């Protein structure tokens, strides 16, 4: 059992609020990704979990026990650093065995556990090497082994793959997920890469400007973004500003001179809204139609399995629509229409 409970945690630096009133419950054996752009507070949150930063207010509980005031060495957490932070003056084996030796475990146990851990991360035969003699991927595995060898309740990973090349990143992604499943360990994973979050995590917590925007699985977050930020950050979205009208119980957004039917939770009639529409929720037409508008300077970008139609609108700006790969542009004008969109209040508040 290892549950994490962040209760109304805040951290303020001189002039910025790094983490603003964040509450998050992480279930036993769950893999949660903290996702957001740099400076969104995700690393601060992770470091508060590890004990390197003390929150200004709020509580952190692991299995119901308040650990807010415990120093890192007394927390049942283990962290993998972005820079790996392997000790360069120790061999791989010594790096992994360090924590066990601190705990004065018998020599044979230290050796066995170290070997076993290096086995799990797929690193045999480099025990006697120094970190500087290893490749980036190998260093990453050592860092993982070092974190796991003490049998922590919570594994914390701080953008662990950002220093690896693209191919290796994909492989390590699967590897980390496999190890997490194998050891059944509750994991918090910080990343700015939505692909990592979407493919690895059970649930994703999207953060922006210190505020937790939404928590949910990949599908929730993609299909039902809670804020305009989430809609824009996950995948891509066309964002437009308009006004919300309720007509016969249906929500319609007036954007310029067109009307878009929208999903809007908790938005009142007449409120200014930001609407977001996915590229795949755009219908491309060859002729003018009600609530469709003309796309200027259309051009196509080929993504292999599909194409993206990019273009501009004089007031809406840059827009993009997903089209089948057989789609061709002719000389005639192109019109687009929103088939589905979501409306968000423009104050950026997170609906609760």
């Amino acid at each position, binding site marked *: 059992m290892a549950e994490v409970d962040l209760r109304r945690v805040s951290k303020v630096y001189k002039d910025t609020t790094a983490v603003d009133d964040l509450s998050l419950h992480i279930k036993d054996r769950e893999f949660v990704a903290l996702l957001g752009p740099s400076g969104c507070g995700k690393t601060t949150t992770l470091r508060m979990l590890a*004990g390197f930063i003390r929150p200004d207010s709020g509580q952190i509980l692991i299995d119901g026990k308040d650990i807010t005031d415990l*120093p890192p060495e007394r927390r049942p*957490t283990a962290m993998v650093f972005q820079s790996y*932070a392997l000790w360069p*003056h120790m061999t791989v084996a010594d790096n992994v065995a360090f924590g066990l030796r601190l705990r004065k475990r018998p020599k044979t146990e230290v050796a066995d556990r170290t070997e076993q851990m290096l086995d799990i991360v797929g690193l045999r035969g480099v025990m006697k090497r120094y970190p500087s003699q290893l490749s980036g991927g190998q260093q990453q595995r050592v860092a993982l082994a070092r974190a796991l060898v003490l049998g922590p309740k919570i594994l914390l990973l701080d953008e662990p793959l950002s220093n690896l090349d693209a191919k290796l990143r994909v492989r390590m992604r699967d590897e980390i997920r496999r190890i997490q499943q194998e050891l059944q360990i509750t994991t918090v994973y910080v990343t700015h890469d939505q692909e990592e979050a979407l493919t690895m995590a059970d649930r994703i917590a999207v953060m922006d400007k210190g505020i937790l925007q939404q928590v949910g699985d990949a599908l929730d977050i993609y299909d039902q973004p809670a804020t305009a930020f989430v809609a824009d950050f996950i995948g891509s979205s066309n964002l437009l500003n308009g006004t919300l009208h309720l007509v016969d119980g249906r929500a319609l957004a007036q954007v310029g001179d067109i009307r878009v039917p929208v999903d809007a939770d908790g938005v009142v009639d007449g409120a200014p809204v930001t609407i977001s529409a996915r590229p795949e929720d755009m219908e491309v037409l060859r002729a003018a139609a009600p609530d469709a508008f003309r796309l200027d300077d259309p051009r196509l970008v080929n993504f292999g399995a599909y194409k993206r139609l990019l273009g501009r609108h004089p007031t809406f700006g840059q827009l993009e629509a997903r089209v089948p790969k057989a789609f061709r542009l002719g000389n005639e004008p192109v019109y687009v229409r929103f088939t589905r969109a979501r409306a968000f209040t423009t104050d950026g508040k997170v609906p609760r």
Partner: protein
Amino acid sequence: MAARTTTLPTMRLSWWIDDPRMRRMLLRLFAAALAVFIGIPLLTLVLWSFAGEWFWPNLIPTQWSLRWWQEVLENPRVTNAMFLSFTIAPVVTLLTALVAIPAGYAFARLDVPLRRTLLLLFLIPNAFPRIGLYVSLAVLYYQIGLIDTYWGIVFLHMIGTMVYMTWITTATFRSIDPHLEEAARDAGASPLRAFFSVVLPLATPGIIVASLFSFLASLDEAQGTLIVGTPHYITMPVLLYTLISSFQRPVAAVFSVLLALPSLLLLIVAQRYLHSEYVAAGLGRV
């Protein structure tokens, strides 16, 4: 080394910088110049110390002799001075290290208020003519009874060595990634344990260099030692000054060689140590 581009030859004044052969040659030239300007005076000293007879315009002495060495080493004043110098320098180094290592760490890591000001404060003794400082220190020493004592000299030397040590150790600790320390804490080490297991080993090269500087600075200090140590505490450089004024060139040469020897030995030892693989890894920031 980046491959040389094959664009059309647009001549620049610094073209030779791009040429590896030219660069290598310049480097060699520089090394040779260094060797000449440092080596030849040193060599002259060595020659003088072994010279029995050496008149102009001979390039080397016409007669060799160990007379001067014998004279110096049999003189009890000299052996006493040597003994004193070599007991003061290690004590100064050790005491300085005990203060400067924690201070350097604090300057590098902790959010010490006014850090910059404090670091500059350390430089103040070097910003003014030392002699004024020493005279006022001597006055103070008279009042508290430290004048003409062993510890009086040790403390005086520490004024200078503290500067080297604190600045070098601060830079060294700064170059060590704080995450390395955090990783140790994360693995269960107390702050003290993390310092001794991770930070200190990685800082060792810097600390050795700093200690070396301190040791040599203490060994070399004459001005202040002359003021607060006479008449009973005469160190090697102080004695050297007296010898120079009495103008026995070969004796002074022997003395200089004696003074230079520890520096040379220590540098060789340090260089060997600083080149070891472990240090390279430590400084090479994985």
